[in-house]
């Protein structure tokens, strides 16, 4: 999967990573470095800080996510991101679209994935 994700158009990958960030924040709030680390656990979704922060900034400007400073149990305060109400709604729609596309693409590419 890694090699295929590398050859996909960058706009496509950006859109997928954006959805991945929304999915991550749907589970609960997280700070910047944590988002990068957690995405790094998925080889196809790993992004650098140079990609992550502009994406977070854009999502915030479009009102899908919000940020707030919180005290950290270790070290200085951290800026946490969470989904806004608008973001929750958009995420629901995007996830449904993604699932439809995924099913369609799986059958088109001829390797239907049976697990979730």
């Amino acid at each position, binding site marked *: 999967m890694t090699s295929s994700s590398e050859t996909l158009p960058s706009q496509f990958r950006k859109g997928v990573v954006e959805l991945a960030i929304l999915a991550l924040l749907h589970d*609960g*709030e*997280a700070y*910047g470095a944590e988002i990068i680390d957690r995405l790094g656990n998925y080889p196809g979704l790993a992004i*650098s*800080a*140079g990609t992550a*922060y*502009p994406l*977070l*900034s854009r999502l*915030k400007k479009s009102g899908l996510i919000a*940020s*707030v*400073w*919180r*005290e*950290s*149990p270790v070290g200085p*305060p951290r*800026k*946490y991101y969470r989904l806004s109400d608008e973001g929750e709604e958009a995420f629901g729609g995007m996830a449904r679209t993604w699932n439809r596309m995924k099913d369609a693409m799986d059958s088109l590419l001829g390797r239907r994935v049976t697990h979730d």
Partner: protein
Amino acid sequence: MTDGQSSATGGGLAPEAAAAIDDYFARFQVEALAAGPDEWENAVADLKDHVRDRLAETAGTSEDAERVLSELGPPEALAAAYAEGLRSQEGPPGVSGRCLGVPYDMRTPSSERFASRWWNPLDRRILVPKALGVGWTVNLGALAVLTHLVLPDDEDVPFGAVPPRIVAATLVFPLVAFVAFTALAAESWSHLPAQVPTHWGISGEADGRGSRLSTLLFLSVMTAVPVALPAWVHLRRRPSLNRTGVSAMSLSLTTLALAVLVQTLFTLGGGVGLWPMWLGVVCSVGSSFVLLVCVSRIGRAAEQHRDLSGASTKGCARCMRT
């Protein structure tokens, strides 16, 4: 025109309605061409789509077509409005782009463009295209991120949460450099010979000379203009990023002018070498870097104060849960 006709009037329109629409857009095109916009084809396509959408809700009779077209106004007036709209989209005069890989920007400069090139922590590139001229300039924001002095997302909007009085106070630094330059120039004026060094070779030997008056006049303009411009930006109440950015740039330029004056006096005093100039260049970039980092940290502290002081108990409970 047959193709255009069928595409514009498809969807069960009465023949009279289709004829009315085609007549309308024929007149529109004549006017649009006369007014000169190059993109009139797009305008016609967009407008035909609009008309077709509006007519889809109706029976598609010629009365419906007349009504929808009358909403758009006379084709001549619409064409004039489009021409005006296209002209205003062209942006400020001048050009920008790349030539042989080297970026150039000759558009009318704006404080916003200058400031966002100098301080953009979200952009990882240290060298970014110049806001005015040919080549690259340093993105001090990326440098601050690289040296771990700030995080890219420390501030929601660069300098956005910085108290206004701090933003206004950034103007003090270039002013101090300007005063230092003026004081040094005034103090040394009487000791200066008629001809002073104005250019130095790589070894530090003066290889060009100019008159005392023209040299000091040139350096004075080089310090006065960078101080006057940010004062103007501050007075116009531009956003904090623009104001802080131009203050930093002004500090950089006035420090550079001060360095040239010190180098001149150094050479006249018998000193050999270019170290005052090099020190000046380092101070020029360093001082604006320090200024921008400090203001950014003040902005971060203001954001933290806003978020942590008000709802600290609620915030901490949530934070622990995460």
